[in-house]
């Protein structure tokens, strides 16, 4: 702080602090508090707001348990509330997206950190960043076109003979996952790349010299070292996927429903902002809980991730 004042003078420093404080307060803290408060109040006609029926309760939160549907889990028929079902599918597919991102990003990160000639690294980074110059909406639409039943991907695969009849890509959650992996993989790649490049190459060589095969080197040396990077990448991809609205809306099929879409329906279709806020906080709270439990199981500390 003192350093800032010395460098920019009291006036400019004060202005900067004021702007940051305004941003935090008006755009982050107050909206969240307002939503949090309204999530405990019922959805009422305007005339009754502040009236005798406007009392705090958990009713909005308990709405997730309304309206059950029949489904099967591991072959056993069960009855679950439809929104709970949506929630679990969202969590489950976000986990799958996270795992796929890791599986794809790890070899690339290792290649970038340890194998590629440092002189061609800027080119690779540029290639990775180029897609980000296009807006997320356009990229999701691009995938929607690519994956269409009569789209370029099927044409290409038919042309090279990899398939003999077109594949329906936008079905169930398939296209949503492809879109999410594509959108968020860089959030996995960069923490992994950072973690792996801080590993002393001599350690990899020492392991090899002691007779370790390549998979053992990764399992015992590279992965344990990169664990904080894996953790922060996974947390980011998981949280962003579970909270994504755009990709599931554009690439979703008739049978896919993301929890954020349910929130949006409460907000836009039912115009019940109170229940929508309750669902949003439910998602935030349960995802945080889930991430904390997973981190505890893998013995990752918050301070490791911050590194």
């Amino acid at each position, binding site marked *: 702080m003192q350093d800032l004042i010395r460098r920019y003078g009291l006036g400019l420093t004060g202005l900067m602090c004021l702007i940051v404080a305004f941003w935090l307060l008006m755009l982050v803290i107050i909206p969240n508090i307002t939503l949090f408060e309204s999530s405990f109040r019922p959805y009422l006609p305007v005339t009754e707001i502040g009236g005798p029926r406007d009392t705090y309760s958990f009713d909005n939160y308990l709405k997730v348990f309304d309206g059950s549907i029949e489904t099967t889990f591991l072959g056993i028929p069960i009855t679950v509330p439809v929104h709970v079902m949506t929630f679990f599918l969202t969590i489950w597919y976000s986990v799958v997206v996270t795992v796929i991102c890791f599986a794809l990003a790890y070899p690339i990160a290792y290649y970038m950190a340890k194998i590629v000639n440092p002189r061609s690294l800027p080119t690779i980074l540029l290639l990775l960043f180029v897609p980000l110059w296009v807006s997320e909406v356009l990229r999701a639409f691009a995938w929607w076109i690519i994956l269409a039943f009569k789209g370029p991907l099927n044409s290409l695969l038919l042309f090279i003979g990899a398939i003999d009849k077109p594949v329906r890509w936008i079905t169930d959650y398939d296209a949503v996952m492809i879109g999410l992996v594509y959108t968020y993989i860089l959030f996995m790649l960069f923490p992994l790349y950072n973690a792996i490049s801080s590993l*002393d190459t*001599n*350690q990899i*060589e*020492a*392991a*090899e*010299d*002691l*007779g*370790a*095969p390549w998979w*053992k080197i990764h399992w*015992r*040396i590279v992965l*344990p*070292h990169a664990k904080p990077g894996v953790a922060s990448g996974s947390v980011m991809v998981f949280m962003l996927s579970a909270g994504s609205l755009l990709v599931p809306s554009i690439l979703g099929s008739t049978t896919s429903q993301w929890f954020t879409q349910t929130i949006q329906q409460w907000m836009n279709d039912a115009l019940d902002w109170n229940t929508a806020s309750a669902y949003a906080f439910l998602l935030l709270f349960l995802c945080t809980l889930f991430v904390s439990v997973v981190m505890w199981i893998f013995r990752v500390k918050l301070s490791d991730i911050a590194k």
Partner: protein
Amino acid sequence: MSAGIDLENVSCDFGTFRAVDHANVSIKPGEFFSFLGPSGCGKTTILRMVSGFIEPTQGVIRIGGKDMRGQRPNQRPTALIFQNLALFPLMSIWENIAFGLEVRGVDKATRRAKAEELLRLVDLPGAADKMVSQLSGGQKQRVAIARALAVEPQVMLLDEPLSALDLKLRQHMRAELRAIQKRTGVTFIYITHDQGEALAMSDRVGVMSHGRIQQIADPRDIYNNPVNGFVASFVGENNVFEGDLGAVSDGMATLSTPHGQFRARINAGVSGKGVKLYVRPEHTIISAAAPPENGVHGTVHEVSFEGAFIAVHAVSDSGMKMVAELRNDGSQVVPAIGDQVWMGFDAQRAAILPDADTKR
């Protein structure tokens, strides 16, 4: 079990730069062999070729008579100790030592027992469950040695393992390493830029400069009979006279220099003008009267007491600085600053040598 190593015409290029140039050396099983040379002369490159991390651009490396071309480091019977040790910081000491056994599928109890045994061998009992960060420099050194020994290599390759230690510990670890080598009988290839270390520990030394091996000999020969000026000056101090060669006979030659006419031994391959004569300070004699030959008259300008010997620095009348080392046992008269003296040397103790071998 130990194996010999043969390098036959081994060269290594990085792009257009030749890091190692036609290295030929045959290291015997159970030998303690050192490569000695200044920074950047290609020592590490040789070691990395033997361990398999770099393939030679040309030439053949044999370990135990077997051609090593195409063999990965994990397939070679060598163990490398890295310049920075490269211990695994996330594993405990015993897991570090047993890593080589773990990858070979040895069960945990046996691994642990073997690690404890090796820790006793390197004189570090009781450290098994510590973490790497809890050890001192010298202790890490020992763990690195134990980790390499655990896989029972036929050849140990050590890349300046003592360079990070302080002087006292370095001297202690020298003796320790030598003892471990004797006890295990494994062939050691040791790399260092410290001539004292190389001379004190090795059975034989290979002196390198600019990618070329200049001389391979036992430590005494390296010091007493260097083959060229580079070896002579890298492994010790010299007074050097430059001049034109005169008559040569029976391996002795005369050299006319601005400081006088000298007679000394001459190595094959030296001829012409601008050749150099090397004489060690401890072979330089100081006297009041002119010696029968190889005498230079001058003035003492500094006398420094070094403990085991006394260094007398003098400037000849012709303007050349010379050093003579006198033993500190009272057998020689130590001149004072400003004294007029004669400096001389025995013709058998001085040598006219070619410059370093740099030809391609």
